[in-house]
Structure formats: C-alpha cells, structure tokens
C-alpha cells in the first residue's frame, strides 16, 4: 500500500511506516519512553529527508505520550509544579533549537550535527544505563538486595540560588535546575525529534534527585508539552511537519505502545533496562559507524 507524503514529497509504503511506528511503540510502551530516538534515525535510513523525519517524529511523540500522561495523572505520578518549570524551559529550548536548526541548515551541517549529537547522547546514556542495569542484574542473580541508589541531588544543583519547595517530588531546590534541564531537552526535541525521556529520566533521578514515583509521569508531562511546542515551532520555521507521515506513525505506535505496556508487566525491570540500554547502544554504534563510513551519497542538494 503506497502512500504519498505531501510534505516529504515522496511516496512510501504505508505498511512499512505503520510497522516502524508499531515496533518503536512496543519499545516505548515497555520502557516508558517516547521512542523518538529510534523513529527519527529509522525514518532517515528509510529515505525521509532528515528535517521532515525529526519534525514528524516529534508530532508522533505527542500522541504516543498522551495516554501515558493520563495514566500517571490518575495515580498522582505527575509533579505539576516541576512539570510546569520544565515545560517553561522546554518552550524556550524549542525556540533556541529552531534558531540553531536554521543556522546549521544554512551552513549545510545540520545532518552531521544531528548524527554527532545522537552518537554522543545515546552512547553516554546507553553506557550509563547498561552499567547500572548490569549491576542490579548481577545483584539480583547473587540473591543480594539491589544496592539502593543514594537519593541526593547533585552538588551543582544544590548550589543554585533561590530555592523552591517541590512537594510531590520531595525536593527543596532552585527552579533554575529544572529550567535549564527543560531548556536543553527542548533544543534536543527540536533538533533530533526526540521527546527526551531518556535524558530527562536519568537527569531527574541522578541530577535533581526526584522521588522515583513521580519521575516517569513528570517526564511524560514535559514531553507531551514540549513536543507540542516543537511541532508548532517546526510548522512555523522549517515547515517540515508531514501530517500524513505522523498519522501513519501514530497508528502503529499507539497500538504498539499498548502491547509494549502489557509485555513490560511480565518482565523484570532490571532486564528491561538492560534490554533498553542495548538497543540505545546499538543505535549509537550504527550512527557512529555511519559517520565514519563512506556515505552512499557524497553530494546533497539544497534548493536556494
């Protein structure tokens, strides 16, 4: 079943897009991440122009996270105060991201920067996750209790001025820390088409020291709003949001996410995290190799 994408200006197989969305959806349901970090590179491998891939993937992440936000809200797993600060920073981040996008595009370096960012981010976060999950897998194998992570915020965060109380997160820290975190994730969302859950969750746990019960819900809350802002920003600046592409991705991913969420209930969390770490590292390695290998196309064309 072929379908013409009016913004990407090419025809793709709708089934491939739905399956791609579905596969990413299963993973995102299992791990509670938006899955943009997989969607964007996969779309680019499939031949979608990078800007359209990033823009449409962020639209798709909005849809993929909405039901998660509702589920966590019901359980009281969203710190709205923290979420609002993150979103506020995130919206400025998307605006900054749009400016960076424009500059890099005019220099012709957007693709390289996107690739390098992916390699650095996925490589480091995948590495950290793999290390952490291996430790807990070993601990549970040996029958010892998993060493409890120290729940403390980073000294850098503690030193910031003007503290607020975040009751649900159980924190008394400066709002500047989540503001900056939101800002950085906003830039990532704009450039990479990722929701940023895989940066946000570890940052909330290990940098801010938030209580684990509100981390995923608050992260999803921030992702929901920042990807909405990023879709708007892409519509206004790069004009690269392909609504047809986003809808087909969504059909796959929302279905996949529900399946993934059910699968996740049957798996041990430490294995789940190890599995996610391996996927993240594989994507990072593939992208790193892509930078070093001679590309299929030496030349690229840009209309003036």
């Amino acid at each position, binding site marked *: 079943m*072929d*379908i*013409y994408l*009016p*913004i990407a*200006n*090419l*025809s793709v197989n709708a089934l491939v897009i739905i399956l791609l969305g579905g596969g990413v959806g299963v993973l995102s349901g299992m791990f509670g991440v938006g899955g943009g970090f997989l969607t964007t590179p996969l779309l680019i491998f499939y031949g979608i122009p990078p800007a359209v891939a990033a823009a449409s993937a962020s*639209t*798709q992440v*909005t*849809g*993929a*996270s*909405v*039901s*998660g936000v*509702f*589920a966590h809200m019901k359980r009281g797993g969203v710190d709205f105060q923290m979420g609002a600060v993150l979103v506020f920073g995130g919206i400025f981040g998307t605006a900054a991201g749009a400016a960076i996008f424009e500059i890099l595009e005019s220099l*012709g*370096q957007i*693709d*390289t920067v996107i690739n*390098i960012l992916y390699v650095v981010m996925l490589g480091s976060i995948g590495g950290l996750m793999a290390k952490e999950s291996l430790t807990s897998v070993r601990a549970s194998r040996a029958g010892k209790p998993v060493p409890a992570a120290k729940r403390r915020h980073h000294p850098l965060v503690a030193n910031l001025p003007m503290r607020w109380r975040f009751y649900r997160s159980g924190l008394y820290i400066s709002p500047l820390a989540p503001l900056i975190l939101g800002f950085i994730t906003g830039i990532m969302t704009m450039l990479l088409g990722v929701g940023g859950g895989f940066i946000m969750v570890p940052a909330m746990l290990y940098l801010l020291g938030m209580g684990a019960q509100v981390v995923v819900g608050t992260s999803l809350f921030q992702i929901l709003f920042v990807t*909405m802002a990023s*879709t*708007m*920003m*892409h*519509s*206004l600046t790069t*004009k690269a*949001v392909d*609504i*047809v592409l*986003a*809808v087909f991705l*969504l*059909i796959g991913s*929302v*279905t996949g*996410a*529900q399946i993934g969420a059910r699968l996740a209930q049957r798996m041990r969390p430490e294995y789940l995290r190890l599995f996610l770490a391996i996927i993240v590292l594989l994507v990072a390695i593939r992208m790193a190799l892509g*930078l*070093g*290998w*001679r*590309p299929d*196309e*030496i*030349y*690229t*064309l*840009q*209309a*003036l």
Partner: protein
Amino acid sequence: MIRLIALFLFLLPVAAGAQNVPKLVPDVSQREINIQSGFTGAEMLLFGAIIYPRGVAPEGQVDVAVVLRGPTRPVTLREKQKIAGIWINADSTDFRSVPAYYAIASSRSLREIVDSKTAAIYELGLERLQLSPSGEVDAAEQKRFVDGLVDLNRRNGLFRQEAGTVEITDQVLYRARLNIPSSVPVGTYTAETLLIRDGRVIVADDNVQVRIRKTGFEQLVTIMAQDYALFYGAMAVLVSLLLGWFAGYIFQRL
C-alpha cells in the same frame, strides 16, 4: 501592385524553405499529472507524427529525440569529505539553473545521431545541460561538482537518459515512454521533440506543456503547511493528541 509582388518575391524563399522542412505534430499522454495519495510516479508517453513536405519521407534514416524538462531553479550542491575521521559537508557550489527533472530518450544513442556542437546548442544529453555553476574558477573542480550533481539526480530518478527507446514507425510516427518518479517536483514541464538527420536538428518543437501538481488533500496539506503554518501546526498537534488519547481509551476497554 509592385509592392505586393515585391513582398511576394521576398516571402517566396521563406515559404519555400518552410515547405522543405518537415513539421512535427507532437503530443503527450497526459497534459496534467495530478499527485494524489496513491501517487507512486507516472509513465508519460510522448508521441507524434512527422509531416514531410509533399508527404514523402526522405531517403535514409531519421532520428527522433524527446525531452521532458521540469522548471529550473537555483540550488546549492554540497560535497562531503572525510575530515578527522568523519564525513561532513566540506565544499559546495551554487548552480543557477538546474532543471527539477530532465529526461531524454532518443531512437539511437545521442553520440551516434548528433555531433557535440549540436548537442550543446540543444542541451541534448545529461552532460550537455547548462546548469550555470557559479563561484568555481577551477575547471576540474567545477566538472567534479557537475558530475556529482548529474549522478545524484540520475540515481534519484530525476535525470534520465535512454537511448534506443524512441520507436519510429515508417519514418512518420514516433513514440517514447518516460518514467517520472514519485519524488518529482511540481511545476510546468516542457515536452520537446527534435527531428534529427545527418547529425543536424532539422526541426524542433517545444510547444507541449505538462502540468504536474498536487490535487485534493495533498494540495490542501501543502498549502496549509506553507501559508497557514500556525493553523497547520495546531491541527497536527490536535490530530496527534486525539489519536493518542483515542488509542489509550480503546485499549483500556479491551
């Protein structure tokens, strides 16, 4: 009266000349290509008749070349080079007039039917396109970029050159098929037919135009995205929210 005769005498050679030149009656299978949701590319049939003076086909072989050409536009071509172990865009050249699409088919290979000067005048063949590269002084470097541009477009299916695909029947009727990929840019295309004999272009006709455009929903989406960006973005967000929420609702009931 004298004036009239003088005018007649003056026009006579022109008319006689025109009489000796065959006339082309070209047409295409579609004057309009509409891009809709199922569009996977198109096949265009370019066909027509050659009307010879006094209705007699000349001795010897005639050849026909057909060209379908999209609107030209300026582009920047970037070249990746390996720098510090990674491939990045390192060099670039601007071209002032690159056709969005260019396909040529001929009854025999272009080298056999026209000399290089004629090919250059009529822009016959991918290596004869007038792309107007700017900025590069070094001829070798310029050629590298031109070759890169042509090669890129050829592999994307936007530049094509096929020899031996124009069928000529009884020296009078000709037909050729050209493939158009789904990634074809919209715009007004020109179909050109050239009648070639003894290495020279005897007559050329480029009066047939083909309009390629998006229609219906695809057109609507494109116009929305371009001109009503705010509304389009809001729609995209809304559709995404609704689909996500709806799926969550359905699966809760299952």
